């Protein structure tokens, strides 16, 4: 009888836990699934979770961009490539070398342990100032302070588009 009714704060916490769950399950599926399409599905789940995390970090804009770009573009592109290049990928799974599996596991474990220790041992100076997540300030910063980077990014994207076209072109019309 003394289980407290979940209030708003609890609800937020539960939603957060769900997001963490999505992220981690998605990540696990993405790097362990036998079929590449399922890996992409895992990636999508993971990205949705990450978008949720961003939302909790007071940046709804970035969260939505995460969905838009990663789910709507990157995941779709990867699935296209899978459909094109690996129709029978399911045969090709399995431990590649004798060492790769354990080796990967050890590396990943070490990395994870190291980072976690680093995160926990360091005494982070948590600032009281919280970003307001507003799009306006970000837009202003992008066009003033980071204008150069912004332009460079657009050039990179343009180059990427053209380069991708050139590499993948088959020359039907020639």
């Amino acid at each position: 009888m003394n289980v407290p009714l979940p209030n708003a704060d609890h609800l937020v916490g539960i939603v957060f836990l769900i997001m963490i769950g999505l992220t981690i399950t998605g990540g696990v599926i993405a790097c362990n699934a036998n079929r590449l399409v399922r890996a992409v599905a895992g990636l999508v789940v993971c990205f949705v979770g990450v978008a949720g995390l961003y939302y909790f970090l007071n940046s709804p804009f970035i969260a939505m961009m995460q969905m838009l770009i990663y789910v709507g573009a990157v995941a779709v592109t990867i699935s296209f490539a899978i459909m094109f290049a690996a129709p029978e990928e399911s045969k090709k799974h399995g431990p590649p070398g004798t060492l790769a599996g354990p080796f990967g596991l050890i590396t990943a474990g070490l990395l994870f342990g190291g980072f976690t220790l680093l995160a926990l041992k360091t005494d982070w100076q948590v600032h009281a100032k919280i970003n307001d997540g507003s799009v306006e300030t970000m837009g202003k910063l992008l066009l003033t302070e980071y204008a150069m980077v912004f332009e460079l990014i657009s050039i990179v994207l343009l180059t990427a588009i053209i380069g991708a076209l050139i590499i993948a072109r088959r020359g039907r019309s020639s």
Partner: protein
Amino acid sequence: MEILSLYNNLNTFLIIGALLFSMGVYGLVTRRTLIGMLIAAELILAGASINFMAFNRFTAPDPQVGQIFTLFIMAIAAAEAAIGLSIVVAIYRNYKSIDAEDLVELKG
């Protein structure tokens, strides 16, 4: 209910970021196919982005920089996906395989 207020804790995000990063590394090592590696690389980028965002939220003096960095990472990831996949497609066309170990010729 400590567990329900995890979202106010910097370390939660850092650990998730680290987890994603190491999962990405694991995938990068174990995957044989190029596309699988690409997926793993995306995970690594996501892990890094989470760190940026977390620091942006909790410790940054100027609370926009992290977001902007994350945006840039997204753009780079998109470009990387496009280029990487067109390379995969081109390789597949020439070698009929996207298995990284079959591509010994690339080693020169």
